């Protein structure tokens, strides 16, 4: 992605303050910009903005740059940055928060399979209480890029042959209970 100039008037420092109130992000403003997070991240080389820059952009308040980035969706939640951060910033939690906000605002990269998978997963579990791998992958592909299914045929066949691909759509018995439970939203 091309780096563009930023102007201070585009920043929203109040947003940064709100982000720093989320669980795990309390020490956001103590970030040293040492780059340990980017160095230890197995995925940073593929990201459009490195984790260190994400932290820098967040705390200056450049909201849209981070929420539109692919970086937050590439984070696989391996917690490497979180345990190595010398300032104990839970960067994984920071990324989760940014993903949630991007989805709420509809700013996530469209058709990015990771974001689509998360949404499909969410709806499936909310409806049925469990996730079924086969139908999850199918839905993810159909709503992002159906052609990726072609590349999965070989692996899919091997999984069927070894009895590892269940076509059953799982669900729990106490569906009303879980729907009641999830119906309540968190208030903070």
């Amino acid at each position, binding site marked *: 992605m091309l780096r563009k100039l930023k102007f201070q008037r585009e920043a929203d420092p109040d947003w940064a303050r709100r982000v720093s109130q989320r*669980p795990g992000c309390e020490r956001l403003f103590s970030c040293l910009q040492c780059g340990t997070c980017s160095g230890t991240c*197995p*995925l940073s080389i*593929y990201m459009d903005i490195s984790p260190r820059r994400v932290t820098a952009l967040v705390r200056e308040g450049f909201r849209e740059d981070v929420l539109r980035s692919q970086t937050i969706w*590439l984070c*696989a*939640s*391996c*917690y*490497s940055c*979180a*345990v190595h951060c010398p300032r104990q910033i*839970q960067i*994984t939690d920071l990324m*989760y*928060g940014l*993903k*949630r906000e991007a*989805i709420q605002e509809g700013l996530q990269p469209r058709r990015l*399979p*990771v974001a*689509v*998978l*998360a*949404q499909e*997963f*969410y709806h499936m*579990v*909310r409806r049925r*209480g*469990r*996730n*079924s*791998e*086969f139908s999850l*992958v199918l839905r*993810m592909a159909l709503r992002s890029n159906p052609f*990726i299914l072609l590349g*999965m045929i*070989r*692996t899919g066949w*091997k*999984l069927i042959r*070894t009895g*590892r*691909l*269940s076509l059953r759509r*799982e669900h*729990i*018995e*106490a569906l009303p*209970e*879980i729907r*009641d*439970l*999830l119906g*309540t*939203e*968190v208030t*903070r």
Partner: protein
Amino acid sequence: MSAYSYFPGCSLRGTGAAYEESLLALFHVLGLSLTELEDWNCCGATSYMSIDEGSAFLLSARNLALAHKAKCRDVVAPCSACYLVLRKTQDYAVRYPAIGAHVGKSLAAANLPALDGVRVRHPLEVLYNDVGADRIHQLVKRPWRGGPVACYYGCQIVRPYHEVDRDCNPTRMDELLNAAGVPTVEYALKTKCCGGSLTGTMHEIGVRLNYVLLKEAVRKRAQAIVTVCPLCQYNLDACQAEIRRGTGERYDLPILYFTQALGWVLGADPEALGFSRSISGQKSIRQWFSTATEEAKAYV
């Protein structure tokens, strides 16, 4: 006899079927009882937290509440993602009063008990702490006929909580396997991420991460990789054919669960350990784990 509640998670009913089979067989051999939580639900994994924080905590809170209702409050979650999500919910409900209050209120409204007294356990740590390497050593029934293995711990059981093992250089799986007579190699990438679900979503990136893991294992002369997580096992197992096609390098390593390796050595029924479910390394698997040659040897 020690008893535990058991939270299988969605993967162990699909791609990770061999993990469940070998776990049950191994616990049976060791005389440990596992009782599945009644009507458990999905833990939410990493995806749910990316959409909705409040209900992500509630999903795992329901499972913890079920464990509270069950006879045994030690709940064993073999999948790394399940383990971490349950453990994190428990921790955050205590550490952040707002989350704790939200979880408590919602559970009470759904007539579910509170979470206190429940312990989230991983089978690796159960075997290490409750059974112990010495006991495992005494119980060895079969010699290990395979080559040295690389122990791959992955990410979410050692980070951010260090209860299963240390986050830097964990060794408990190595210790257990060594005690059981399985040689292990030094494997520097033992806690490097396999990419999780990225092999399904950002395929090329996921495959690349697994290529690096396989290459290092082979460089250390490991003849198999032993894992603790259904997602790690799937990624390393299913990517090899594609890596062979893409790089021209010959990878055909068996990717085993630690429960399969230990189950074999401790004398569990080989049919019950799910070896036939592996995609890669079937040649080595047939050589190492066939009872036919074992019986023939006993006969001679």
